[in-house]
């Protein structure tokens, strides 16, 4: 698409569309709105290093390296293979949610119901199997449908009411917290579920959601594989498909996106379904790893997922960010929270150290991004 300055009758609508696209793209962070006629600046080949410097996750990667170096120096047990496996596990349980949450944030929306949605997903799975005395895979399938239903509800309410997603998902968050507790108690009689480890299908479901793969002498949790798989999928979706362009466009500005023909409602609902899918995977891990689910769990985790996405370079305003960044953000979080334990720092100060390290990582991230943008 080259901008044609000659106002021919057929060229006029094309020119309007062009303007709209650059506008949407401009907020999406490509940064070169309306540069020149003639050659399109998006098609200019830039050197690899420069391209890398322009990526949203760059700051996070540098931050991750810094955190890694710090703990390698201060905690002697941090660098052991088994320790790294623990850190990866901690990161992956956050990362599985942080990746779809990042996509949602790039699309310009929030979801505050994610933390408890994970618990809902595992509760549904466990209680359905138990109460119906069904093969646990049936519960797993029902749980997928229910969790996607919650995602659909969030997305549909959002596009229909046009209220801020913050409010809508705050409502879902509170409702789910109550439902988790109320229904569990109504059905199981106590606030935690009954054990399903002696039921059919448990072993195979555990293998998929909560097993340990041994690579040489080290065991890697299967959640790490889920996590990396989601990162690859999300990155491909964002950078190589039309849907990815839509996500950036609706996050950059939904009115302009709609004006150029992006199906805004469908994109946003799709993003909420993605989050629900992540919640389902995490929820099944929770169930098959611990066998019994506590209904009060998950509150507060939604902020950690958002934090991981933001550390990874997502903007709170939408339109900018990456899946790899969110994964790195989760890794920084995992490294920091476990590194403090490995370093044997005073446990009463744990939260303070955690907050301070995260703040430093984000500051470093912002600083590098600014430098990278200045150099472009």
């Amino acid at each position, binding site marked *: 698409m080259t901008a044609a300055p000659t106002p021919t009758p057929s060229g006029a609508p094309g020119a309007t569309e062009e303007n709209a696209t650059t506008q949407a793209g401009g907020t999406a962070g490509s940064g070169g709105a309306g540069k020149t006629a003639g050659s399109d600046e998006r098609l200019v080949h830039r050197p690899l290093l420069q391209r890398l410097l322009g990526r949203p996750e760059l700051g996070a990667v540098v931050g991750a390296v810094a955190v890694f170096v710090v703990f390698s120096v201060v905690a002697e047990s941090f660098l052991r293979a088994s320790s790294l496996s*623990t850190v990866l596990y901690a990161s992956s349980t956050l990362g599985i949610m942080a990746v779809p949450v990042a996509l949602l944030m790039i699309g310009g929306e929030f979801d505050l119901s994610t933390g408890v949605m994970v618990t809902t997903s595992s509760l549904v799975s466990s209680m359905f199997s138990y109460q119906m*005395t069904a093969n646990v895979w049936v519960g797993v399938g029902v749980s997928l449908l229910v969790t996607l239903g919650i995602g659909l509800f969030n997305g549909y309410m959002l596009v229909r009411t046009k209220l801020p997603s913050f409010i809508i998902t705050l409502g879902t968050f509170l409702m789910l917290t109550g439902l988790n507790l109320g229904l569990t108690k109504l059905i199981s009689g106590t606030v*935690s579920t009954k054990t399903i480890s002696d039921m*059919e*299908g448990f072993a195979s479901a555990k293998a998929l959601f909560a097993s340990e793969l041994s690579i040489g002498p080290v065991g890697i949790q299967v959640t790490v594989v889920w996590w990396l798989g989601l990162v690859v999928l999300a990155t491909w979706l964002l950078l190589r498909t039309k849907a990815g362009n839509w996500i950036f466009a609706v996050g950059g500005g939904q009115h302009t996106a709609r004006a150029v023909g992006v199906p805004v409602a469908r994109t946003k609902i799709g993003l909420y379904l993605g989050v629900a899918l992540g919640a389902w995977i995490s929820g099944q891990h929770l169930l098959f790893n*611990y*066998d019994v689910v*506590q209904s009060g769990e998950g509150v507060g985790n939604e902020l950690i997922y958002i934090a991981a996405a933001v550390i990874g370079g997502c903007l709170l305003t939408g339109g900018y960010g990456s899946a790899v960044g969110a994964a790195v953000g989760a890794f920084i979080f995992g490294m920091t929270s476990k590194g403090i*334990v490995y370093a044997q720092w005073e*446990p009463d100060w744990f939260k303070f150290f955690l907050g301070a390290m995260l703040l430093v990582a984000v500051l470093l991230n912002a600083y590098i991004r600014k430098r990278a943008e200045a150099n472009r």
Partner: protein
Amino acid sequence: MAVALTSAALLAAGCSSSGGKGGEENSSGAGGGKGVNTPRMTIAMVSHSGEGDTFWDIVQSGAKDAARKDNVQFDYSHDDEAGRQAQLVQSAIDKKVDGLIVTLAKPDAMKGAVKKAVDAGIPVITINSGGEHSAGFGAISHIGQDEAIAGEAVGDELNKRDRKKALCVIHEQGNVSLEERCAGAKKTFDGEMSTLNVDGTNMPDVQSSVEAKLQSDSDIDTVLTLGAPFAATSAKAKEKAGSKAEIDTFDLNAQVVKGLKDGSFGFAVDQQPYLQGYEAVDALWLHSYNANELGGGKPVLTGPAVVTKKDVPRLEKYTKRGTR
């Protein structure tokens, strides 16, 4: 509709021949028989519990069983934030209940509300924590476990088991009673004891943090958790970290009993939450019926009771139905 159809289809596809509801034994609850014929009275309980805490669930079932026997209308409410808990007490006063059961986890914040209830002529019984403030606030009795004494009992038990280095896992940072448990255990324990703060609402975090701690210090031979759900998670962490540590815990649930039975846990300290709920309702009933006062101005202790493998056969069916 589609969901119902699909799940019905899925259901037809697979049933489990083991476990599940089908494998459940019929459990019998208390209070099935006829109760007293004293006039109907209303008793409110206001606790500092957060959402979905197993422990408070058991307290409630004790209270409800007593309520059934004593012809009592039992209202339960809770809030883990002290200011809002005090408001709940206030609304119970406004409702003119005949008796009030309240916990004093944050005594200073509750002082005003409890005093108001006493001034309004409502008999108050405190349960669970805050025993030392109970009489001062004008309550009739306190029924609960002294956390420091319970901790000390754990320290003694660890000495008996010849433990050298223990880790105390605090699942809610800054919770006074959890800190008291660790401090009590530290006081009587002859070995070395360190603490670890974990995020109790995030099980994977609990697991990976305990794992990290065990990996960084392989001398730890005992992990002490302060709530039943965290014991099983710690057992998992121990296995992953390749540690030989013994897992001991405060409070009971079905998983802990199972673990005690198969030897994956050493012992559990039970403070008998059912008793706290049951006795509180019953004591208020007795106060109204017969002007009795329980405890003689001193806290009535419901724990600690150290539970080991040999107690399991006796307790198993009670934890399953959620009263122990």
